[in-house]
Every structure is written in structure tokens, then in C-alpha cells.
């Protein structure tokens, strides 16, 4: 039978109508509550003329409307385009135009941004979720009509598993956002793997930390639905305050957590974990950037009952490799990214595209059921990133180029070496910026570190770094850090300058936004006439 992503909700509502589907700030929706609202919204969308494969954008804050809008859009056969709720009008407008969206689902709190964004989007003919008005310039249907439009059954729309399901966008903080198209098949393939690998059961409660427009939310929402488990949506205020966050984890008895390491570092440093009962937490998954060893070891000791899992992938592939950590006492050296998921086949190649032997570093290529269809509206990038390789029988296979350099270890685990584009040349020497960061992080009190390059004015590059922490009071220029580094790094890898910053700019998933950081720091210098 055809299995589409929103069928997960249909099945959960049939088998556990009263089970808690989603919770946020103490309010919840059962599977049945969620289904009747989502199918009601789907009915409205169909009534407004939405056809299969039309793009329907969703621009709402974190909350109970998120899953209603997501499942409703899919159930109408449309391709869901979730927009980062923190986007300014210009970004909303660009995503609407670039995806060719014809309808927008939003909410009253977004009215001003939506009106500004829609001024440049004549193709968006309808808006759902805000009151009609002359300022809007098009038809609108308020949420109260959506709430009143509850439907018992999924509308009949013909789709196949390889039809588009959603288009996720990257942050685009210093460039154009990439638009990443996944099908129902790639989404459910990832979900099936996750449910099986982490043994997700109906009594599990998954936190939703990341914004719902990211691939992290695919796990938080859909893996929960597949297992009829609950999703606990964390609000921005809860996420900003680690003390409140740890209290919530205790109160809601969250069993599975998935986020970038940063969120866990904050929780470990400022979440008062020593006073909390987090024994319900059984899996902590992290992905997206390197987890500094000292922070990882501390939080593993603070939450001894949980198992930790390092998952690796990008929005383009969901997750393609994973590594379950041993007990903290057995951790040695850098954390591997592990072995391929059952959904994925991987290959490590050199610059010419030839497979390299185990132990040699090269770029990681991935093939598998969780890989995206491609970048929306970007044929050139697709040709460069989704490469065809010859296979037996005169056929070809499509591999995704991750842009990450890895190496296979003797135990067959893959180890991350560096982003291919973070390997830089400084006065002729090859330097991995990740190595500079990892050495900085090994220094006492350095909480976070980021390295980047600037042109040195002599035709080469110079390395600079920014740190959070590191005994800021009596060493404002970072000289002591530089002294410490000089015994740990080769001369070409030494930063010429270290900035102290109170915190790092972040991408929407919470990764350090290196490009934004560099822009902030170097523009501040320009303003001061340097």
C-alpha cells in the first residue's frame, strides 16, 4: 500500500485516538484532535483550489498549530514549504517567490510581516490563518474557520510515494537560502529507520527543540507519529533559559532529545542538572557540529541514565550515519560519525572521484532512500552535488556529495576530518579550521570557539578566531590564549588575532554561524576605521 507521510497521523488517530500527540506550554492535542483539525484544513485548502504538487507555505510560530498546518497541507496533496518563524518579511517573500507558492498558512501574530512579504508575491492568491482586510489585498480565511472545519476522514487525493512532500530551506543568513526537496518516500524512510534504531514506543515523549522548518523536526514530529509517541514542543523562551528547560524536561518526563550540541552545552552549564530528575531521558541525540569533548563528558555524567547517540547527515540526506557512544569512561579521542544507517550506502573518494582505501581521507558520498530529490529551482547545483556514477549493467547510481572529508577507521567507523570548504591554505600550508577550533576548545574555560579566515593583504589568508569564555576578565586581548596555542598548533595554523565575544551567532538549527560571525567582527572593525 502507498505510504505517505500524513498516513502516519491517520494511523495514529485510528489506533490511539486519545493518546497525546503534541504538547506545548501545558496544552495538548490528542491524535484524534490533531487529525480532525488537519483533515479540516486539508478540506479548506482543496476547497480553495489547491491541487497536488502546488506549494503551500506555512509561516507560524512554534506551537500546536504547527502539526495541524503541516499535516493539513500534505493531506491536501500540496508540497509543504515550512518557513523559519523568525524570518523577516524579505526572506518570507523570497521563499514564497522562489518556491512559486500559491497559498500561505499563517497566524494573527504574523500579520504585519505577512502583509509586507506579500507585497512582492502576486502569485500567492490566498492566505489562511488571519482575518481578511483591505491591507492584505487578497482572500483570507481566519483560524477560527479552520478550527470550525473539523473533518473525520482524510480527503481523497491521489499521490505516490515519490511525489514531493516538503521543501526545507537553509538559513541563508549570508546568502540565498537553499531549497531542499524531499519526497514522502525519503521522509518515511528516515522515520522508519529512526523508530527502529531508537526503539521509539507509544509511551515515549520526544522534545522538539529545533525550529519546525529544519530536518531535526522531521525526527521530532514524524518519528513520534510513526510510533504514536508524543512530541513536546519547546518554546523560544524555554530554550533561551536553560534552568526553565531542565525543569520542563523533568516535569514532562521527556524520554528522547535531539538537537545540536550547543543546546546541550547550555543545559549542562546553566541548567542546574544536578538538582533535576532526568531519569526518564533514555536517548540524547546530537548532530550538526562537533561536540566539544569536555562538555560532552560532563553532560554524560550529569545524565547517567541516558544513552548518547551522534547522528550525522544534513538536510539533504536526513541522517546517513550514526554512532552510539560507549559509557563516558570509555570515550577516547575524537568522536566518530559512525557507520551508515540501514537506509544508506556510502563511499569515500579522492578529488578525482576515485574510491580511496580505508584509512585515507576523502569526500563522503551518500546514496540511499533518505536522500533528497534535489535543490528546488537550481539545476546547476543539482548537477554539481547529485553526481551520477556508473554501476553494473550499464546503469548509473546517484550519489549526494556531502562536502565533508572523512576517513574510515580500522573498526569500520567513519571519522569526520573537516568540511571540504573549511580546509584553507595559509601562506602555502594546508590548515583545517576545525583543528584550530578543537585546540581552542581544549583550553580551560573556553566554552565555544570559531575560526575563520580573512585576506591578509598580501595575497594569502590569515586565520582569526573568536571565543566565548576563557577567563575574560584579566585577558581582554586573548594574549594568554595565543600563548597557550603557540605550543599546540603549528605556526601557520595560529590565529593572528582572537576576539572575545559574549556569544556566537547561530543558524536556525543552532549551529555556530561562521559567516555571520566573520561579518559582525570584521564590519565592527571597519566602522572603527581599521
Amino acid at each position, binding site marked *: 500500500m502507498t505510504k505517505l507521510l500524513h498516513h502516519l497521523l491517520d494511523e495514529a488517530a485510528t489506533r490511539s485516538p486519545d493518546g497525546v500527540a503534541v504538547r506545548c506550554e501545558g496544552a495538548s492535542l490528542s491524535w484524534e484532535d490533531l487529525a480532525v483539525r488537519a483533515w479540516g484544513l486539508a478540506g479548506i485548502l482543496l476547497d480553495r483550489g489547491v491541487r497536488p504538487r502546488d506549494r503551500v507555505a506555512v509561516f507560524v510560530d512554534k506551537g500546536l498549530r504547527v502539526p495541524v498546518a503541516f499535516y493539513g497541507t500534505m493531506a491536501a496533496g500540496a508540497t509543504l514549504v515550512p518557513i523559519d518563524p523568525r524570518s523577516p518579511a524579505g526572506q518570507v517573500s523570497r521563499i514564497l517567490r522562489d518556491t512559486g507558492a500559491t497559498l500561505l498558512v499563517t497566524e494573527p501574530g504574523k500579520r504585519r510581516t505577512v502583509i509586507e512579504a506579500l507585497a512582492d508575491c502576486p502569485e500567492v492568491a490566498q492566505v489562511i490563518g488571519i482575518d481578511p482586510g483591505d491591507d492584505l489585498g487578497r482572500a483570507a480565511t481566519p483560524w477560527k474557520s479552520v478550527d470550525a472545519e473539523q473533518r473525520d476522514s482524510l480527503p481523497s487525493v491521489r499521490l505516490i510515494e515519490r511525489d514531493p512532500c516538503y521543501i526545507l530551506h537553509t538559513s541563508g543568513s549570508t546568502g540565498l537560502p537553499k531549497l531542499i526537496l524531499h519526497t514522502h518516500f525519503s521522509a518515511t524512510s528516515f522515520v522508519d529507520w529512526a523508530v527502529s534504531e531508537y526503539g521509539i514506543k507509544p509511551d515515549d515523549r520526544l522534545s522538539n527543540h529545533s525550529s519546525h522548518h529544519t530536518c531535526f523536526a522531521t525526527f521530532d514530529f514524524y518519528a513520534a507519529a510513526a510510533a504514536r509517541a508524543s512530541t513536546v514542543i519547546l518554546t*523560544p523562551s524555554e530554550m533561551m*533559559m*536553560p534552568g*526553565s528547560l531542565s525543569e520542563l524536561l523533568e516535569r514532562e518526563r521527556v524520554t528522547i532529545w535531539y538537537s545540536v550540541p550547543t543546546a546541550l552545552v547550555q543545559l549542562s552549564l*546553566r*541548567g*542546574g542538572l544536578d538538582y533535576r530528575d532526568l531519569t526518564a531521558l533514555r536517548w540524547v541525540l546530537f548532530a550538526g557540529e562537533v561536540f566539544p569533548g569536555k562538555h560532552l563528558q560532563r553532560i554524560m555524567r550529569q545524565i547517567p541514565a541516558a544513552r548518547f547517540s551522534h547522528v550525522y547527515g544534513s538536510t539533504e540526506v536526513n541522517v546517513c550515519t550514526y554512532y552510539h557512544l560507549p559509557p563516558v569512561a570509555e570515550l577516547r579521542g575524537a568522536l566518530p560519525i559512525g557507520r551508515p544507517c540501514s537506509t544508506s550506502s556510502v563511499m569515500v573518494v579522492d578529488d578525482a572521484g576515485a574510491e580511496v582505501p580505508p584509512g585515507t581521507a576523502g569526500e563522503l558520498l551518500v546514496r540511499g532512500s533518505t536522500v533528497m530529490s534535489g535543490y528546488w529551482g537550481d539545476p546547476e547545483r543539482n548537477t554539481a552535488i547529485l553526481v551520477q556514477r556508473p554501476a553494473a549493467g550499464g546503469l548509473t547510481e546517484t550519489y549526494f556529495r556531502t562536502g565533508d572529508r572523512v576517513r574510515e577507521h580500522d573498526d569500520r567507523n567513519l571519522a569526520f576530518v573537516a568540511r571540504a570548504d573549511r580546509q584553507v591554505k595559509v601562506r602555502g600550508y594546508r590548515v583545517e579550521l576545525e583543528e584550530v577550533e578543537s585546540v581552542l576548545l581544549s583550553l580551560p574555560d573556553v566554552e565555544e570557539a570559531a575560526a575563520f579566515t580573512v585576506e591578509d593583504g598580501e595575497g594569502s589568508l590569515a586565520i582569526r578566531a573568536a571565543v566565548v569564555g576563557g577567563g575574560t576578565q584579566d585577558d581582554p586581548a586573548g594574549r594568554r590564549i595565543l600563548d597557550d596555542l603557540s605550543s599546540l598548533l603549528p605556526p601557520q595554523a595560529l590565529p593572528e588575532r582572537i576576539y572575545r565575544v*559574549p*556569544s556566537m551567532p*547561530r543558524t536556525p538549527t543552532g549551529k555556530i554561524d561562521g559567516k555571520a560571525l566573520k561579518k559582525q567582527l570584521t564590519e565592527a572593525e571597519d566602522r572603527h576605521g581599521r
Partner: protein
Amino acid sequence: MGADEVGSTGGIEVRVREFLEQEIGDRGRSIDRDADLLSGGVLDSMAVVRLASFVGAAFGFQVRPEDFVIENFRSVGAIAAYVVRSRATQGAEDGGVTD
């Protein structure tokens, strides 16, 4: 600004608004004392960390890890109340006040 003024809730609120003005511009100066700073998109997580270090430095007490909760930083009014509370308890622990 006199010491008495800084010690009062109103004085604390003035200083917090000055900080907010630096962070988010003019609307920081006039922000309502009960307006939600955390969920309303007023401050991002970077600004919250800066706010916490500002509050500790400006009012002479230590912001402890366990203080990072919504109740303490939700609004200008909440921050003022938190400052008053922290100064009283930390002063007591330092031996500044005895029963």
C-alpha cells in the same frame, strides 16, 4: 544617577531599558515593564546572555547558573524584581546583613 535611585526598582528598570535601547534601538527605551522579552522576538539568545552579564555587572551581584529561568528575565519588571532579590540574598550570604 544616585545610589538610591539605582537601588530602587524604578532605577533598575531605567538601567535595563538603557541596555535594551543599545541592543534593539529606540523601542528598547519605551518598552513596557510587563512586555515579554523572551517569546516576543524582542531578544535572541545572544542578547539574553549579554543581558545577564550586564545585569550582574551593573548591579554588583553574581548571576548564578540556576538563575537562568524564564521568571527572572521575562520582562523589564521581572528583571528588576530578580535584581532586588539577588542583591538581598547575596548580600546576606556575604555577611552584609545579619539577623
